[in-house]
């Protein structure tokens, strides 16, 4: 690749510093899945509509299919694989399993990332809060009912844990 079509970008993924030389417009999603072999983040639509590619980007949920890698410079990224290492996020993941919040599972990583981010900002979300916070994560299998239940149960468990 010529000089002009390549950039070296420094960022952190799941706590580990990365140095990536790539075409600047290469999608963050592809860098994560192909170069870093973090295949937990999924592609569902490539147009920022389904949320299956959601990751945490300096603490905010973004659709990684719409982020050019050049703009990840100095950014702290957390993917679903990183959430697993977080004891509190694990409560959310367990709730998803217990409540039937995952059926085919393809939307699940993005859904868990978005739900986790919601709980970080709003520890006791109402149903309306859930509806609007997760409207960017499409699920074709569940009708969302069990996903909401999982988040509410996790939120309860996190509140209990915090109270102790």
């Amino acid at each position, binding site marked *: 690749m010529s000089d002009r079509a390549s950039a070296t970008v420094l960022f952190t993924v799941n706590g580990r510093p990365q140095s990536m030389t790539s075409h600047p417009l290469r999608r963050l999603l592809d860098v994560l*899945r192909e170069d870093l072999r*973090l*295949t*937990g*983040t*999924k*592609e*569902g*639509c*490539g*147009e920022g*509509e*389904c949320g*299956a590619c959601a990751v945490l980007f300096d603490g905010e949920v973004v659709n990684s299919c719409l982020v050019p890698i050049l703009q990840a410079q100095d950014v702290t990224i957390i*993917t*679903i*694989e990183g959430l*697993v290492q977080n004891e509190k996020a694990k409560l959310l*993941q*367990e709730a*998803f*399993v*217990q*409540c*039937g*919040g*995952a*059926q*085919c*599972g*393809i*939307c*699940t*990583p993005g859904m*868990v990332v978005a739900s986790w981010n919601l709980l970080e900002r709003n520890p006791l979300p109402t*149903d309306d809060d*859930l*509806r*609007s916070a*997760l*409207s*960017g*994560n*499409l*699920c*074709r*299998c*569940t*009708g*969302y*009912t*069990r*996903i*909401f239940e999982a988040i509410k149960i996790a939120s309860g468990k996190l509140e209990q844990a915090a109270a102790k």
Partner: protein
Amino acid sequence: MTQRLMGSSLPRTEGHSKVTGQARYVDDISFPEMLYGVTVRSPIARGRISKIEFDPAIPWNEFTIVNASDIPGRNRIVLIADDQPCLAQGLVNHAEEPVLLLAHRDKQLVEEARRAVTLDIAPLPAVFDIDDAIAEKQIIWGTDNIFKTFLVEKGDVDSAWAGAYAIVEGEYHTGAQEQLYIEPQGMIAQYDPETGITVLGSMQCPYYVHKALMPLLNLPPEKVRVIQTETGGAFGGKEEYPSVIACHAALLAKKACKPVKIIYDRGEDMAATTKRHPSRTRHRTAVDRDGKLLAMDIEFTVDGGAYTTLSTVVLSRGTIHAGGPYACPNVRIRSKAVATNHPPHGAFRGFGAPQSIFALECHMDRVARQINMPPDEFRRRNFVHEGETLAVSQVVREPVNLEQLMNRALELSEYRLKRERFARENETSIIKRGIGFASFMHGAGFTGSGERSMGSIVAVEGTKEGMVRVLASSTEMGQGTNTIFPQIAAEALGIGVDAVEIVTPDTSVVPNSGPTVASRTCMIVGKLVESACLQLREALIQSGLLQPDYSPEDFKRACSEYVERRGMLKCQSQYSTPPGIYWDDDKYQGDAYATYAWAVYVAEVSIDSRTWETRVEDFVAVQEVGRVINPILAMGQIEGGVAQGIGFALYEDVAWREGRMVNNQMTNYIMPTSADLPPIRVYFEEIPYEYGPGGAKGIGELPIDGPAPAIVNAIENAIGVPVGRIPATPEVLMQAMEGARV
């Protein structure tokens, strides 16, 4: 048999791997030296290929290029009629029809190359309309553009009109619906001259793919191996279509002698793959003074697209369900599947039934209105009972109490109270409210003799470690196969679920248990799992290694010892038809399905009279399903199916232009988000079905049959004008209300 596991909400077996991002879908898998494959497609709906041009700017010598002449065997996707080419040769019959395949190591370059191929196609006149197809404006398929017809006759319809108190007619339309699984379609193929072809990918039916690959590649069964990867949603969209991609990937892999991965991008997936068959149904119904049905004359037509695919079977199911759960003495159903130059339509949850049930249930409300009878009273007077016959003359040989289901649903939804209240409030309110319901049934398993012809097999095997492996070709696609099979097996064997392993559906390892479709996986295949396990248990007891009152540890030891001593412990169970099932394929009469699940769904809607936007405010789903094996999974099926049904009713519209889908983006094809759906309230009743595992019937498709008619009935209740078509978008409602004013 004690029921310690059946009926309990065991957590999803692969749940942990899904919520941690560890589950591996086809695009998560790579092989060394793997190439990326893409499909070059026809831009127009019908024509003759005159020239294919390759832009010299691309280094074509680096590419693997496959056309129809590279096919060693038959250029056909083998399914039912074998009329669909794998790659178009000469003629193209639909937009997006595959013509050429390209593969290259560079994922980016292969897309650029796709753009650099120009297909010169001389257009031929195309047919896009059901009536144009029937009128034979152009013959685009066979001799008359008709894939299939059915005629169902019960009693004597024509004699009933004269004595009728009222005769009501109606015409109903449903549009195409995209399955929209969130994981796009994809396959990886590998070829070895010694061992043959191996294909892995997202699919519902490994043996369908296996069957399609053999004649295409001229390979015997043992040289074709198909393995299902974790599948991110399917809903029928991955029943027959995967054979097309598998064949494409295999051709490229064979020519390149390298592994080839094909993953469709979303726009391509939406435009090129199958959708639900659009339908048109015409009803003519006679009732007597007491509101009892005297005759139903039904004309049911579906648009099959350019090739047969599964249209004959979709038509079959739609036809059989067209008369609904009513005892009507005289019925005639004339149905047709016609060819048009759209990309072939195919399987989608419900498979013809949502279309004909939509028409019927909207029409039943219309008849009730015409004779000034409340819709629920009208149903009550006509519901079928045990001993009475359905439209295809099937004698209902199971207890069924639709009145009770309906009463429960109406009570839970406050139907009567709300109907009265809304009638008052709508006079002055800007937001019009309505409530409506649909009563329906869904036959589980394959129609008629289908299950017997298939002869599905399940095997179970004991291991040296004392585990039990279940070998079946049924796939997990989110519905819970890999959770309920261990539940059923463990229950039958008296062991824990963690002692049961479900083997990945791999055609070189598992027997053919039939496709994962038709709401048959729990009821039919699950029963085979149960019976194979009972055989295995019996084998152990007979051997003397296991006493009848054993513990799970005893079982483990006995199994292990048996395998040590005898080398193998394997039992197989094959489908046999329950007694008393008889179906006449010529007359299309008799026991169409071994059993039905029965349901009544109620929808409450609000319509903003300024914008005609409809919102579903509440939804109640009551169904009798034999036995609920796993409540959370079962509720998940109903909730998800209802959500898809709401999409079908209100939002999901395929915009066609010259036979091509132009809104093929998730931004423009509208499925419900979490903000669009109400809480979906699910209730089960259980009347155990003798031949299902633990008494279970099938439920996968049932929930998508009810929502659309319930919602449209609710809308018609709210706005007081007939709608009769879905999706009932705001534009459609505006048109309906404006039209009514004139």
